[in-house]
């Protein structure tokens, strides 16, 4: 946990009058660790007011949405498995800031934040959590299986999504459309064999893929020291250049992603990013999250490195926005979440026919054998 203690952000202040709102800010970023790279992302970033407000709103939406999901889960309106993303918002928002919506992204099961940044709406996400027909996957996927355009989910079996990402990247290269694919995985999944297979293939064929390891220090309840021979995940690509970035600072993540995207688009092949981040909730809703780490640790991260607070402080202390403005955003976000929760609880569940729909792609309806020899359901997908 040393990296938390060594964090510090310095801010260069533009000269300003007291009542004037700043529209642009130059921020000095945390130093980034490099592997097989001569130079890394720039050490300063420009934050405009518009960007600041947008990031604030998106991160706040993710935070509130996850907390609402927590609440609904405890009321047993959401059931099954629910892996929450609060604490890691800067990763999703920062990555999206560095790429465009025409680029591709794939991740594992902690996917609610990415579903939002990739174009999903809170309504659809929450309805998917409750398994209703208005859900983003029509209620058939649940928490772990959410998809939007150019966002390939939402995957339950960790590690399996990374070779998939390489395939998408190959398609981008083949089609020559200057797009790339971002493949995310966690510190636990970093030990899966298929990820190393993917490193090899993507390096050999110079695929435009950004591997991102979201290192939130714990794989379920196992800390990184206990599960990995090398906790320097950004170096684990060996022959693939890597950067290690502070994942709690949305600007650090954005700049690193921009740098990585430029690297890929110039045809140099894959690059690996490790985002050092933290989740406040346990692994999933069945995990209280305090048996393998102390409450003090969670509190410490919340007070010192919370991504939303950091952005808020930055904006307020530099007159980029007033506290009332941010409060208004908070209120608007809250309302959006409430509406979405209302929708998610009242929308009807998908019809029973959907049980058999979309198993195969079929031109004509075909019969699906049912639980007993005489029950057959018709698949009309």
């Amino acid at each position, binding site marked *: 946990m040393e990296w938390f203690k060594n964090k510090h952000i310095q801010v260069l202040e533009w000269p300003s009058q007291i009542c004037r709102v700043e529209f642009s800010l130059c921020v000095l970023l945390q130093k980034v660790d490099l592997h097989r790279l001569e130079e890394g992302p720039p050490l300063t970033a420009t934050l405009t007011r518009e960007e600041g407000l947008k990031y604030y709103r998106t991160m706040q939406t993710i935070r509130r949405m996850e907390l609402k999901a927590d609440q609904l889960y405890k009321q047993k309106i959401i059931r*099954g498995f629910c892996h929450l993303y609060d604490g890691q918002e800067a990763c999703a928002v920062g990555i999206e800031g560095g790429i465009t919506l025409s680029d591709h992204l794939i991740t594992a099961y902690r996917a609610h934040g990415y579903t939002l940044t990739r174009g999903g709406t809170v309504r659809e996400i929450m309805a998917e959590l409750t398994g209703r027909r208005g859900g983003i996957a029509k209620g058939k996927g649940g928490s772990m299986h959410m998809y939007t355009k150019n966002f390939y989910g939402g995957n339950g079996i960790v590690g399996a999504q990374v070779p998939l990402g390489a395939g998408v990247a190959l398609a981008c290269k083949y089609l020559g459309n200057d797009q790339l694919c971002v493949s995310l995985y966690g510190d636990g999944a970093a030990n*899966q064999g298929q990820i190393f297979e993917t490193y090899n293939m993507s390096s050999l064929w110079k695929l435009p893929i950004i591997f991102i390891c979201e290192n939130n220090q714990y794989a379920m309840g196992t800390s990184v020291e206990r599960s990995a021979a090398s906790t320097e995940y950004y170096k684990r690509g060996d022959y693939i250049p890597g950067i290690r970035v502070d994942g709690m600072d949305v600007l650090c993540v954005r700049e690193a992603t921009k740098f990585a995207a430029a690297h890929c688009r110039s045809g140099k092949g894959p690059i690996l990013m490790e985002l050092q981040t933290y989740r406040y909730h346990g692994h999933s809703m069945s995990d209280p999250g305090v048996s393998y780490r102390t409450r003090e640790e969670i509190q410490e991260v919340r007070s010192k490195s919370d991504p939303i607070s950091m952005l808020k402080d930055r904006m307020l202390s530099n007159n980029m926005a007033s506290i009332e403005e941010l409060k208004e955003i908070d209120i608007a976000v809250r309302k959006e979440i409430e509406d979405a929760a209302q929708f998610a609880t009242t929308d009807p569940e998908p019809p029973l026919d959907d049980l058999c729909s979309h198993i195969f792609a079929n031109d004509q309806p075909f019969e699906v054998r049912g*639980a007993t020899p005489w029950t057959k359901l018709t698949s009309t997908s």
Partner: protein
Amino acid sequence: NTMFSTSLLRVGSKLIGLLLTRKGHFNTLGLRNDFGFPPGLRTKTFLLGPTTKMNLFQSVTSALDNTLASDPTAVIFGEDVAFGGVFRCTVGLRDKYGKDRVFNTPLCEQGIVGFGIGAAVAGATAIAEIQFADYIYPAFDQIVNEAAKYRYRSGNLFDCGNLTIRAPWGCVGHGSLYHSQSPEAFFAHCPGIKVVIPRGPVQCKGLLLSCIADQNPCIFFEPKILYRAAVEQVPTEAYTIPLSQAEVIQEGSDVTLVAWGTQIHVLMEVANMAQEKLGVSCELIDLQTILPWDTETVCKSVAKTGRLLISHEAPITGGFAAEISSTVQEECFLNLEAPIARVCGYDTPFPHIFEPFYIPDKWKCFDAIKKLISY
């Protein structure tokens, strides 16, 4: 040496203290409860010495405890087993036996099984845990191509018989696609390994100890919905239940019911319903070992009753019921009074929200019996 080797005798001795679970289809917690684990479900064993009330995960812990105590080469490994496991199957074992005998692996199923095979070949009694049966597929190559074929391809020079793989199995009410699967049919297609599924704590401990003792690589699937729900008085000493022997839980004369794991309890309810409402006497058989399975017991029973119903949660096409059905029609063709009925899951991925409609619950099974009787 405290290992007793004993067979299940049909002496009708009942075990005491079986706990009742919730009735009804799905209770307010949304947990599946279209079956109960009622008192009086006869589990025919000798009471071997002192017994303690244990649920399924505690019976697993007890079996592992006995193994680690009596076999100095035994090691247990898997994801998160050190603190006790996500289902508490290994609680207390690390403290008792040390961290070089009960240890965590990183997140790598293929690595876990491959490593387990190696440890077994070198002589250790390796007990690997795969966190959910749904995650076993990265290890499929290791199991099918390496573990199953080791003895055969080396002409008996080497074998990995000391390997046992344990995995939680089956639907649990809210597991959705990747925490509910029943993959026994995939492994049934592979000569060289054994696949075993218990129905309750007493069977679990006995069968697990048999798997560990067996000189072939074994896969032991534990019905996760029964981990807490099934409670019985289980002997604290070690004992084994023979593999490849099906158990006739209830004798009957009209219909043979075959299942394994959780589905046994569903069929128990169905048998009671059939008796009450239709006056049909059902013979209920727990297959216990899927591979190699006890053809004799099942065929003898079908020769007597003339009707067979097989039920499992896994999808119907290619599910293990197909194998049983095929063999029984070969052996007992002229004894059959009606086509063999299979009540299984639909041919879809295990669903998220549709689970109550997907599973072969007691109503579907009861309906099947009605059709069998009136054929």
